[in-house]
């Protein structure tokens, strides 16, 4: 920009104004209409349970998320477009600022051919490639669900699809929101937190501390039974589920407090032991789920 050697502020501002306006306009145009961030929710090698769980969100619900918090640009389950037009939306979003949410692990066997998510211009696009493309450019990467966070059940022995977690695949920092499925509050809360305040405070395992970090055991309503040694002997009993194989002591989520589906119930409240579905070693390390 040429700086005129003058002391007149009016002239100087004339130099600045046009460029500033252009800069601002370009920025506005690039961002989505209501200044909402773009979001890609990529389903990879998994059961798509997390987007289902997200649909169970209440206050805020998924419509609030889509209207007020983010602009969802791509999701296999919800988007109206199909085929190449749908994948085009994915590619277009890569050019903008966006948050990448991945659910499901990443299948790597045979170059990812165990999970193909699109056919674009005659070429099959594997989940591996899609995650690579988006992971390189995303502002934030959130791994929702235990499969995306740690490999989960997609990577259970003998791991026929060669599935790995998103973090391991990308080799980058990934915000983990594990759970099988992830509670809608955790996923939605993390996304909302990112949009409003940037990266949330994470614990040592990259999970948002507002939802993770204290074991179920430490907040369990049945803890007094454990402390006094009064144990259930079968499902349906009201005492501590420890002797049946409860994984509450090694799982750090807020299930006892938050509970599920409109906060009505949770697995231990349903008289079954916790199976550690949000734990790093789920499912192999959490088995047997029930042992008499």
């Amino acid at each position, binding site marked *: 920009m040429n700086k005129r050697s003058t002391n007149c502020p009016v002239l100087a501002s004339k130099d600045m104004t046009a460029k500033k306006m252009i800069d601002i306009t370009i920025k506005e145009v690039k961002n989505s209409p209501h200044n909402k961030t773009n979001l890609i929710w990529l*389903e990879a*090698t998994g*059961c*798509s*349970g997390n*987007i*289902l*769980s997200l*649909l*169970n969100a*209440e206050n805020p*619900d998924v*419509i609030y998320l*889509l*209207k007020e918090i983010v602009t*969802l*640009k791509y999701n*296999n*389950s*919800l*988007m*109206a*477009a*199909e*085929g190449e037009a749908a994948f085009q939306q994915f590619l277009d979003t890569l050019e903008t600022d966006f948050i990448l949410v991945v659910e499901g692990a990443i*299948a790597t066997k*045979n170059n990812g051919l*165990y*999970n*193909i*998510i699109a056919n674009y211009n005659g070429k099959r696009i594997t989940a591996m490639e899609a995650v690579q493309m988006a992971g390189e450019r995303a502002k934030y990467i959130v791994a929702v669900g235990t499969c995306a966070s740690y490999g989960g*059940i*997609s990577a259970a*022995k003998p*791991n*026929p*699809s060669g*599935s790995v977690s998103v973090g391991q695949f990308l080799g980058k920092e990934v915000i983990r929101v594990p759970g*099988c*499925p992830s509670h809608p509050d955790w996923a939605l809360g993390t996304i909302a937190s990112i949009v409003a305040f940037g990266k949330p405070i994470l614990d040592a395992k990259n999970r948002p501390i507002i939802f993770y970090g204290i074991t179920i055991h430490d907040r369990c309503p049945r803890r007094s039974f454990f402390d006094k040694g009064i144990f259930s002997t*079968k*499902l*349906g*009993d009201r005492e501590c589920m420890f002797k049946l194989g409860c994984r509450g002591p090694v799982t750090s989520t807020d299930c006892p407090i938050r509970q*599920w*589906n*409109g906060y*009505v*119930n949770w*697995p*231990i*409240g*349903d*008289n*079954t032991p916790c199976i550690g*579905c949000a734990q790093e070693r789920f*499912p192999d390390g959490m*088995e*047997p789920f029930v042992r*008499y």
Partner: protein
Amino acid sequence: MGQKITINPLTRISGFLEIQVEVEKNQIIDAKSSGMLFRGFEKMLKGRPPMDAIYFTQRICGICSTAHSMASTLALEDILNITPHGNDKMIRDFMHGCEFIQNHLRHFYLYTLPDYVRGPEIQPLYSTTHSDYRLSLNLNNELSKHYIESIEYSRSAHQMLAVLGGKAPHNHGIFVGGVSVNIDSSKLIKMKSILNSIKEFVINRMIPDVFIISEHYQDYFGNGEGYRDLMSYGVFDAYSDQSLFYIAPQVLINGQKQELNPDKITENIYRAWYEANKVEQRPIDPTIDENVYKEEAYSWIKAPRYEGYPMEVGPLARMYLSGEYTRGFSTMDRTIARVLEVKKIIEIMESLLERVSLQPTPQGRFEFPQKAYGKGLIDTSRGSLGHWVAIENQGIQNYGIITPSTWNLSPGDSRGLKGVVEKALIGTRIEDIKNPVEIGRIVRSFDPCVSCATHVFGDGYSPFEIRIV
């Protein structure tokens, strides 16, 4: 030589499906349905403690996890030779019903509706690619509003499930021996009230909506017909009381109704990415190995056949075989049958609530024999689901799963018989080659769930190729 159209991703389904059709003179002359996901659950289950299968197989699919826990539990109870207490059976069926409702509501509004109705102005719920929207602006906005409302009701269906099962998806509560919840009056009244509100929505909104659509899209009564061979493993069938009974296991082949014989079920792996020593596998045959570079194969989904016939399963099969809806076998019939089924299931669930008694569950402790074999067959939201278990040394030796989507989305087999959805597509007239909306509409009427269809396992036998469409 026709023009090839490939649709991948076929969105608004559960999982990853690719559909490839060949079109000549605006008519589909060939179709291929390809499952695009494989995780290998059958292989994973080998060696694990039998009871773990219940929670494990649930995670094959997010939208139909209750179904898998039911089938798995039934298979294990078959091995142990136990039947749960009548009250527990009713509670289990109720939980299963909750999932039916949730699935059908979501499938009709979230998956199917955007094909026929311009969705609410929220990205990415509306499409601007095609323009075959025939509803008037007013009607369109009405149905669009109902789309948004349906989210609350499908959520409530899962809430009902969670009251009895701890959480949804991937609920607890259903287990060998019955259930784990101790039902009391507070839970009962909660479910009654939620069920009532869902019923009002279904009767006042959902059913009129599907008929509005069928009125404006009458040409869809003339396409999407499969083989007209239907099958059901039976569901809500353990009752002699008519108000609780839905459908018993049966098949319809060439217009003849027959009793179901599960031994006639095989899986053909010719067109699927698996290798085995036999091309025709029985469900409990040893695992097959994958081979994604196999020449003639095009899917991860295997081709199940009943006595060699490709069978259609799902709400249409159930409503037709039980006599509730016998109008036809087309795309629109399938969609209508699904919506009408919700009402039927709600009525059954209301009756179950009347009869369930408020008592703690008589659960027990179970020990598995060293070597045994069992199967659990049940019809669920998408159709017939079967789990076959073989146990050795008290651990799972073989686990075979054939899901409804495996039946519906199967590829061709070694005899050249096309799968059900492929047959349904062949012969369809495509109005606009650039926007082949007919394909998506027909395929979605089957309610595909590819995560289910390709878990493949197989000991030995069959390589399943599942095409995830």
